[in-house]
């Protein structure tokens, strides 16, 4: 696939190299240094950095301002955008705002329901869904037009991504759902955290059976456990997460002070196994509030040096 945008991430993927992305969550306040500090820790070990958009529906500093900060540091940000909080007017407006700072990557999401956050009384918007946000960005970029039909002066040049959860129910439509996102125009996928590798490989098999891996770049998502408690929490409390019992057992089987190390070991082993899966084009390392571990994970997984 030839690159269609100035995105560095797209260039790396198009060259056939494994790409590495990671993410930073913005702070709960106006302290912009919090973002630059996190980015400093990981910048030399990844190709692009996602900034999450009010994840888990907790109000935070906005992803748009945070990606601009990264861009001004000379980094390659991925703007995450959820359709929960903005209608099509605000979404298009923010996309143009990002494009004006040469932000070249976007991740289109619907967003967690507000019930999970700190403002459960809020109205949600969902004027469009994540599939339709993919269509919207492609329409703006490729047709140079707003959804309303008017021309855009200097259309955004964005490489368009979305999430995929290989583990959500119903499993039988997982490949169909990805096909639908591809039909909508998605160009790269970052998956939900993978702990159940067998099931992920089954999903990839379905993807390959339909030839979908040739139409979209797939970055496998991984998140290291900090503790056995975190593994249990992810297993039981986080919707759409599939943490097999063996993994929880392995985490609980080591003494508390060694659990963080074991979490990193599991993460590195997962990456090494997933590297061999045909159709996996890279990794999205989500070290939640543990960004300082990204360099070690990337290094031990043989993902360094970055281009």
């Amino acid at each position, binding site marked *: 696939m030839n690159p269609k945008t100035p995105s560095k991430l797209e260039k790396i993927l198009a060259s056939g190299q494994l790409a590495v992305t990671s993410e930073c969550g913005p702070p709960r306040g106006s302290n912009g240094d919090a973002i630059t500090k996190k980015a400093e820790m990981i910048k030399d070990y990844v190709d692009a950095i996602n900034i999450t958009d009010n994840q888990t529906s907790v109000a935070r500093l906005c992803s748009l301002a945070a990606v601009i900060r990264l861009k001004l540091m000379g980094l390659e940000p991925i703007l995450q955008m959820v359709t929960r909080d903005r209608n099509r007017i605000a979404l298009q407006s923010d996309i143009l705002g990002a494009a004006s700072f040469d932000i070249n990557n976007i991740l289109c999401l*619907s967003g967690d329901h507000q*019930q999970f956050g700190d403002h459960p009384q809020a109205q949600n918007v969902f004027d469009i869904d*994540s599939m339709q946000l993919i269509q919207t960005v492609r329409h703006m970029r490729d047709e140079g037009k707003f959804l309303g039909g008017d021309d855009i002066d200097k259309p955004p040049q964005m490489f368009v991504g979305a999430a995929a*959860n290989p583990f959500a*129910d*119903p499993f039988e439509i997982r490949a169909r759902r990805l096909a639908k996102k591809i039909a909508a125009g998605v160009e790269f996928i970052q998956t*939900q955290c993978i702990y159940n590798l067998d099931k992920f490989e089954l999903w990839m098999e379905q993807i390959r059976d339909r030839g979908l891996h040739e139409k979209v770049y797939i970055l496998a998502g991984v998140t290291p456990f900090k503790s056995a408690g975190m593994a249990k929490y992810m297993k039981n409390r986080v919707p759409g997460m599939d943490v097999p019992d063996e993994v929880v057992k392995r985490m609980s089987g080591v003494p508390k002070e060694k659990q963080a190390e074991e979490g990193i070991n599991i993460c590195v082993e997962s990456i090494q196994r997933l590297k061999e899966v045909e159709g996996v084009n890279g990794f999205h390392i989500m070290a939640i509030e543990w960004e300082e571990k990204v360099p070690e994970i990337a290094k031990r997984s043989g993902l360094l040096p970055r281009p």
Partner: protein
Amino acid sequence: MIVAERKPLDEIIEFIKDCKKILIVGCNECVTVCYAGGKKEVAVLASALKMAFLKEEKELEITEVTLERQCDQEYLEEIRDIIDQYDAVVSMACGVGVQFMAEKYLSIPIYPALNTLFMGVTEERGVWAERCQGCGQCILGQTAGICPISRCAKRLLNGPCGGSTKGKCEINKELDCAWQLIIDRLKELGRLDDYEKLIPIKDWSTERSGGPRRIVREDLQQ
């Protein structure tokens, strides 16, 4: 039908605490079917209010009436001759009925006794659930007869989201995932391929967003 439930008694008492004589008006339509504002519920509310006033050593005279409908002028007219005798009216209709009564009777306070919730069905005895949000452009033909706008917490037109787990919604384990239902039914109909058809961005101008809605049928106007 329109599904509603009664407000807490204290909230209703707060409306009428200074009244001596009130009229409680029930409605014989939807709110009777969902046991919220029919003749029986009017009687229950009347005695509860009387008891509450008695406890405070206050008197309250109550007349109970249940109209055929409160969303129709002709039935609302039935109380025109008596309404002036009262300090206030407590309507046990849905929000539509309460408002229409307030539009008809300008000089007397009208208070709602119900919270109006949704357009829905009786799933089983004592259980009502939402089925329609009146978006003004029905998409049930594309979604196997199951509405993701009223039944998906994110009203996703191309769902399910990543939070669908074992057929249930991420926000509540009691709640069916609308997209699981759609997929199951598409499968049943032998039309699972239809799942891959993208539902286009919706025109919400016929929904609440477009402002208060109105239908004018000239063929029916005199």
